[in-house]
Structures are given as C-alpha cells and as structure tokens.
C-alpha cells in the first residue's frame, strides 16, 4: 500500500530557489508550506492573544484592582477578541484545510497556488496593521464587534479604530480568496473515483466552511467600508444623531457574525469526524447525516443573526421567530453528538492524546451548546446578556469546540506534517492542564454571570463570593497558558527527537496517509484507487473492503472548470456585498430626508442612456466569446474592443454625473441620500473599472496571440464577472433612478 516508488512524475519537481531556505518559504506556492505558514502565524498570534487574556485575568483576580487602567482594559478585550477570531481561529483552520484538503482528495495542490500565497500574505499584513495601532498611542477599544455609535468618529477620535477597520478589511479579502480556493479545489481537483459523496468529512466541512466564508465575509466588508466612509469622508450611516442607524451596524455585523461562529466550528467538526473513527477502528456512524446536517447548518446560520440582538428591542414578533430559528439550528448540531458517540460505541478505542481531545470536545462542546440553547429563550437572554454568562458560553464553544478539535487534529496530523510523532506523555499533561483550566475559568464565569457580573468592565466591587470565583477563573487561565507551553515544548523536542512516524502511524483511512510523511512536493507518486469513503482501509483489508459491503455514489468524472467555478464563487460573494449596500440605500431613502434626494438630484434619462451602453457591452462581450470559440481571432478582438469602449463610455457617464452633483455641492457627507448614492454607485464604478482592466488584459493576450480558442474558458470566466457587473447595475438603476421600491 505505501508506494514508495521514487518515480517523480515528470514536470512536477520544482527547483528550490538559490537564495536559501528563508526565501524558499517566502516565495513558496506549495499548499503544504503555506498551510504550515498559516498555522505558525496563527500560533504566534495565539501567544499574543493569550497574553492579553492573561493580563485581563490578572486585573480581575482581586476586586477594585488597579493593575490595568480602565482604558487599557478596553483595548485588551477588544484586541483579544479580534485577534482570537481573525488572526488565530480562522487562519489556523484555513491552514489545516490548506495542508490536508488537497492531500485527502488526492490532488497535487490547491486549484490556484499563487492566489493561495496571496491569501496567506494578507494575513501578516492585516495582523501588522491591526497591531500597528499600538504605535499610535492606543489600540482599538470598541470591542470585537465595534458597535456604533461608539466606533464612529464623534465617540472614537483616535486612529486606532481606523487601523482596526483596515486590518479587518485586509484579512477579510484574504479569507474570501482562501475560501474560493478551497471551494474550487474540492469541486475541481478530486482524484478519479472520489465523488463528492465520498470525500472525507474534513474535506466536506472545509467545503461548507468555504461556502460560509464566501457568503458571510462580504457582509462584514460592506459594514466596514461604510464605517470607514463614516469616519473618513464624514457620512453618517451609523450615527443616529445625524439620521443614521446604529442598529443597522448590528444587523450587518451579525449577518456576518453568526455564520462566523460556524466558520470556526465546522472545521473542528470535520477534524473530530476524522479522529474518532480512526481511533475507534470503525467508519463514522451516519456519514450522510453528518454531512447533510452541516449543509443545513450553513443555510440556517444566515437566518438566526438577530438572536444576538434580542436586547435591542426588535419587537415581539421578530424575537419569537428568531428564537424558533435558533432552537431549530440546535437540532442538526446536537444530533451530530450522537453520531460521534455511536461511532465510538462498540469500537476498539485507543485513548491517544488526539482521541482524548476529541472525547473532551464532545463533553465540553455540549456544555457550550446547551447554554447556547438557553440564550434562544428571549427572557433568559434579556437577563443574562452582557454578563459573564455569555463569556462562559462562547468560550466553551470556541475552546471546548474549536480549540480542542484543533489540538486533536494537531496530535493526529503532526506525524504526517513532520514525519515524527509528538510525545504522548507531554500531550496528556497538556490535555489535563487544558481541561481543568477551561472548566475552572469558564464554569465559574457562568456562575458569576448569573450573579450579575457584567462583562467588559475593568473591575468589580467586593461582592460576596465574587473574588473567590474570579480567583479560580484566573488560576484556570494560568493552567491553560501552561498547557500551551507544554504543547510548544512538545513540538520543539519532537521535531528533534520524536519517534519516526512512518507513512501511516495511526492506521488512518483517508488518502493523506497513502503518501510519505512528510509528503513530497508533488504529494503523491501513485494515488490509490478510490472506491469508497475509506480508500486506505479497502487497500489494507481487501476482503472487508467498504465497497463490498455498501455502495456509495460512483464518481461520474464531472469536474467543473476551475476558472469559471472560481469566478462564480467570487460573483456570489460580491453579490452579497452589493446586496447589503443596496439594503442600506433602501433603508435610508425610504424615510423623509432633508436635502437632496434621488428625485431632485438625479437625471434618469441621461443615466438610462449610459445604462444602455453598459448592457450593450454585455451583448458585444458575448459575441466576442462566441467568435473566439469559433477561432475567429480578429472578430474576437473587434467585439472585445467594442465592449471596452462601451464600458469606458459608461464610466465617463458616471464621471459626468458625479461632476454635476459635486458642482451642485452635493457631496458624500451632505445627507444620507448622497452617502448611500455615492457608496453604491462608487463601488459599482470600481467594479466596472476592474472589469475593464480584465478586458484589456484579454485584448493584450489576444494581440500577443496567446489566447487560443482552447482557452475560451478564461474568456468565459471574465464574461461571468462582466455580466454580473451589468446585472448589479440593472438592480442599482431600478432602485436608485427608477425608484421601483416605494
């Protein structure tokens, strides 16, 4: 089974750059190295975020403590939250997906290796921007969800908030690019025989996470862009004093924020769905349920955001519906616990460190999940919102769920990534430190929350019982810090003196164990035949092979085109972005406004003329595409040139309109009509310009004779984007100029 025939496939060996090892890491486009870079960067930020948590816990160890100033405490909880979500949680999960998704589906690399490198490098870039804020005198201090109006200029004059916004935008772009990459990799790069119904559950969960990221992150990006326009250009989207809406920020943030919870937990579900079967020597119980219910979670997670806003006062009707939605989403999540338990039932369980963390995941995550269901009941939420009960709840989910899943995966896959085993003795030490630390810190916080201790307040009065509970919580935090040190020490010594792992030390079932540890640059010399969900089990036990016992859907060989799939995913993401901008337009313009409005300031006839140009360019582009498909290069260039011209005329028209508005003194800070109008049309204009750049690149390629009819898929991919930009404009035109909505 472990084919170590050293026949490197021709053309896959890449020469390492001469400038040495450092440059080879910086310039790498290998998914395994990028995965490791992601994981290492996330570990670095984990140390920083953990330190911030420790500082807060030291401040809270005694009542009326003065270890940290109130202002600095605000910066600490803001940076701790932001760091752990955006610089630790998401990157480390993306890192594991980067490393293992291609290996588990038998691919040589991700679909777009260079894009992958770009996504990674945006992470240190965003992290640096965020932490650079310390140099300006203070870090961001409005909390990780930066509620308006606290985050707007009148209440937050320091540039730190701007660094927060720009850093998050940078990370958001990187996350979306990485998600598109994973999405296309899973759909287009699977080995022969690997139908989508047969992919390992970690791959499936990564696919679901990618879909969530693609559709949820643009909501945050839209909100951030609007906040930035508020702060830099003087608009008032989120300033109630000037007619804006602070609640809108909450809606936009949580439309992103709730799916984000699942972005952080679904990959962990995938990880323990790999670990538990292998260490129970059984296939997963109810593969279809685990996979299908995750798809349902993806869909439902967009419908429950307002349960973060029960205390805002949405009205009884809305509260009831969102409460029901929240209770519903607990079903597909909760039943999976039974799947994992049933997988262990009757299995021959090996309690390695990896398995221990997976079992602890089941227990701790259930606690976090159950308190989550409690919050679905609106009155309980009203009572406990913004207390330490909330803090306890989501740390059980994120540590008991995500972090324990990650530790489990680290012990499971470290041998594959490095070729050496981690020390089990140190692993068990780390396990007990973390389990006792987690429960000491956050179980006590549940009690403190019920007693009424508010979160995000820098100190507390000497109320009966509060000090002892806070002390226990701080001791727990120290235990978790020691556990992390044990892991780092374990990695350090195991890299040097760890036992050699071999190809498949755990008797794993999935394709990553079919190659050497660590895998060669081209991943596989020979890919085993895939006829079921456990190809390596089938190889080792041909007489008990899965495909003999139960049929799974055959692979029919359908692999969608990479470029076109990627553009569709991108377009879906952009659609959500524009959707939110348009929602803000409708929200603000359905009210009575002082000053200019769409009716008084815009000329629909002139805009209609330019709209015609843009729509016509879609037609000419389609004709260009057809001509290239037929091999008529010169006709192709004529139609493409015409499309570029029409697009440019549209942009010219927009510039004319802007000039007219500005000469009438209608600027973006004039009123909410002007702010929403310039934001929507401005972003659309930027998209048209980006499309024009893409069309010009196509034209240049065609002039240089490097666009053969075989590469018509590239033109089609650009076409999807170009038509999308037109469709967006049709909606913009109907809403803003024709005012179809009352």
């Amino acid at each position, binding site marked *: 089974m472990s084919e170590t025939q050293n026949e490197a496939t021709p053309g896959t060996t890449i020469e390492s750059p001469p400038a040495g090892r450092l440059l080879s890491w910086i310039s790498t486009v290998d998914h395994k190295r990028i995965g490791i870079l992601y994981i290492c960067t996330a570990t670095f930020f984990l140390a920083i975020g953990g330190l911030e948590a420790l500082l807060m816990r030291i401040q809270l160890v005694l009542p009326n403590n003065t270890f940290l100033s109130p202002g600095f405490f605000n910066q600490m909880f803001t940076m701790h939250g932001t760091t752990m979500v955006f610089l630790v949680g998401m990157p480390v999960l993306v890192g594991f997906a980067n490393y293992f998704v291609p290996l588990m589906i038998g691919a040589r690399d991700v679909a777009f290796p260079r894009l992958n490198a770009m996504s990674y490098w945006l992470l240190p870039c965003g992290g640096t921007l965020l932490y650079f804020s310390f140099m300006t005198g203070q870090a961001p201090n409005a909390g990780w969800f930066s509620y308006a109006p606290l985050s707007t200029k009148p209440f937050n004059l320091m540039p730190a908030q701007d660094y927060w916004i720009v850093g998050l935008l940078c990370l958001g772009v990187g996350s979306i690019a990485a998600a598109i990459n994973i999405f296309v990799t899973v759909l287009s790069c699977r080995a022969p025989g690997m139908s989508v119904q047969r992919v390992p559950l970690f791959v499936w969960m990564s696919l679901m996470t990618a879909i969530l990221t693609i559709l949820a992150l643009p909501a945050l990006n839209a909100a951030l862009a609007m906040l930035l326009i508020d702060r830099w250009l003087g608009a008032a989207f989120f300033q109630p004093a000037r007619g804006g809406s602070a609640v809108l920020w909450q809606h936009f943030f949580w439309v992103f924020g709730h799916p984000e919870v699942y972005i952080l937990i679904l990959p962990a579900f995938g990880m323990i769905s790999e670990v538990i079967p292998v260490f129970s020597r059984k296939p997963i119980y109810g593969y279809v349920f685990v996979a299908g219910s995750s798809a349902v979670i993806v869909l439902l997670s967009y419908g429950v955001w307002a349960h973060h806003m029960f205390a805002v006062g949405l009205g009884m009707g809305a509260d009831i519906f969102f409460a029901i939605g929240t209770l519903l989403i607990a079903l597909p999540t909760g039943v999976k616990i039974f799947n994992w338990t049933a997988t262990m039932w009757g299995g021959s369980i090996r309690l390695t460190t990896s398995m221990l963390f997976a079992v602890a995941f089941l227990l701790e995550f259930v606690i976090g999940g159950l308190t989550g269901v409690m919050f679905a009941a609106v009155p309980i939420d009203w009572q406990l919102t913004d207390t330490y009960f909330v803090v306890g709840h989501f740390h059980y989910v994120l540590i008991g769920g995500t972090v324990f899943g990650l530790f489990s995966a680290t012990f499971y896959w470290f041998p594959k990534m490095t070729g050496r085993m981690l020390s089990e003795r140190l692993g068990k030490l780390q396990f007990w430190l973390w389990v006792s630390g987690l429960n000491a810190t956050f179980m006590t916080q549940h009690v403190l929350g019920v007693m009424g201790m508010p979160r995000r307040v820098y100190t507390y009065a000497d109320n009966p019982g509060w000090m002892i509970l806070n002390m226990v919580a701080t001791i727990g935090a120290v235990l978790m810090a020691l556990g992390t040190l044990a892991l780092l020490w374990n990695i350090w010594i195991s890299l040097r003196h760890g036992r050699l792992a071999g190809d498949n030390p755990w008797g794993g079932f999935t394709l990553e164990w079919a190659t050497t540890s660590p895998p060669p640059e081209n991943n596989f010399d020979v890919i085993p035949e895939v006829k079921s969900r456990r190809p390596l089990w089938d190889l080792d036990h041909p007489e008990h092979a899965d495909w003999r016992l139960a049929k799974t859907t*055959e692979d029919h*060989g359908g692999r969608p085109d990479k470029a076109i799939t990627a553009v569709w995913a991108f377009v879906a993401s952009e659609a959500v972005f524009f959707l939110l901008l348009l929602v803000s337009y409708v929200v603000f313009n359905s009210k009575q406004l002082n000053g200019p409005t769409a009716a008084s300031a815009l000329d629909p006839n002139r805009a209609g003329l330019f709209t015609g140009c843009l729509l016509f360019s879609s037609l000419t582009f389609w004709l260009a595409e057809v001509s290239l498909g037929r091999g008529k290069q010169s006709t192709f260039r004529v139609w493409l040139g015409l499309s570029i011209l029409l697009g440019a005329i549209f942009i010219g028209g927009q510039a004319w309109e802007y000039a007219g508005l500005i000469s009438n003194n209608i600027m973006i800070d004039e009123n909410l009509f002007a702010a929403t109008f310039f934001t929507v049309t401005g972003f659309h204009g930027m998209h048209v310009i980006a499309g024009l750049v893409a069309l010009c690149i196509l034209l240049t390629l065609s002039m240089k004779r490097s666009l053969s009819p075989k590469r018509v898929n590239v033109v089609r991919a650009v076409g999807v984007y170009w038509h999308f930009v037109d469709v967006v404009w049709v909606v913009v035109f109907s809403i803003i100029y024709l005012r179809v909505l009352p």
Partner: protein
Amino acid sequence: MTSYLDDPALWNWMSPIWFVVLALIATYLWMCRARLTARSWWFAVALMALLVAFVSPIGVLANGYLFSAHMVQHLLLLLVVPLCVLLSLPQERVAALTNHRFNFGSRRPMGMTILCWLAGLGTMWLWHVPSLCNAATQSETLGIVRSTSFLMAGLAFWWPIFSPKNRLRLSPPAAVTYLFSACLGCTLLGIYITFTTISVCPAFANPSDRIGILTMLYRAGLTPVADQQLGGLLMWVPPCSLYVCAIISVLCRWYTADELASISTATATGSSPQMTKVTS
C-alpha cells in the same frame, strides 16, 4: 382563542372554492384511474390546505382584515398546495402523458429553470407592490387572478425540484442553489416588510369592518403595525423553513439513490450510462 373558531362569521362555508375542490378530485381520480396509493395522502393535504386558505378564518380575515392572514393564504397557495399536488401525482401516468403530449427533450434548459425560479419569487414580489396589493384586496376579480397566478407560479417553482419525472429534476447541487437563492429572495422581501415604516398594503391599515370583529382583533394585539410585522416574518421564516426541508430531501436523494443520480448525471452531461461506468 376558541371564540374565534366558534364565531360563524369567521367561516366562509359558502365559498366557491368547493367547486374547484370537486373539479380537482375528479381530475385526480382520472389521472390515477381511481387507484389510490400512499401518494394520494399528499393530494388530500393539498385539498385541505386549499380549504384552509379560503373557508377557514384565514380566508375570511385575509379578505380585508389582516395582512398576516392574507400572507398565510398566499403561502398556502404558492408553496403548500402546489408542492403537495406535485408530490401526489402518480409518476408512471405523468410520464406516459407527458411523453405523448409535450416532449421537453432530455435536457432541461437553463433558461427554463430561471423562469421557474422567477415565477415563484416574482409573483410574491409583484403582488406586494402597494398599489397592486391594494387593488387585488378590493376587487374580487383581481383577487381570483391573484390566487390563480399563485397556484400556477407555485407549480412552476416546485417543478424543477419535485417534478414527477426524475429526468426533469435539477441535479442536487443545482437544486440546493435554486432553493437557497429562493430563500434569500423571500428573506429580502420579508425583511423589507417586517422593518419598513410604510404600509405595504394600505387596505389593511384601515379595514372596513364588515362583520364587526375589528375591536376584537385590536384587543388581541393585532394592530396594523404588529400585523404587518407579523406578515413580513411569515413571508420570511416559514418559506425558508420549507425550502430547508426541501433541501434536506434533495440531499437525502443525492446520497442514497445511486441509480437515480447516475441517470440524472448521465442525462445532464448528455452521455450514456455505459460511458460513465467506464470512466469511473
């Protein structure tokens, strides 16, 4: 609550919908040659939904009193009745009939799918433009046009998902996208109706009190503002829940029915089943 159900003014037993129900039963019996199977239960559910929509208090309140009742009626007509009808149709008979009468060809054209999607979503959006919504509530003829268009649009919308002929159904990933985007569509309209300050259907803002129950409704908390909010939420959450259930059923089909999947993929790619066997 029971007093609402007891009040005879709230029941429209003389509704002409009974004729429609009788006609439908006759057609159904003819379709399945009077042989009832387990599927026929779906047909019974469809008829019940139809009666609930017009005969029960929902129908009476929808007629000028409550926007939310009017929304329940729409959902029944657009989503529940057509879905149950499609599920109740005997497959073999439909296959025989459609093969003779209209041959759609082996491939479902993309444009057709988009039209079906637009029919389902567009009807909902169109009839809630304030002027149209008002007119349809006040004019009986327009009301009938509206109800019919809901039923037709509902059939068109569900056809690519639950068509009695397997080969006319969308492939599961496409079906999931179809339903998810539909969910997004009604979420948007639902959010708009829930949170907007203007009256979407002014006829419901100051109803004419035909049967003298308005005070009772207002006392129960169903003031026009709360009523419209409830209507918006009804348009948003129940359809999405129904779509999610449909997605679950599609996913089950995808994972379990190997044979079915191989047929639909083969027809989608235009190759024969033998060809795909070789490649796999």
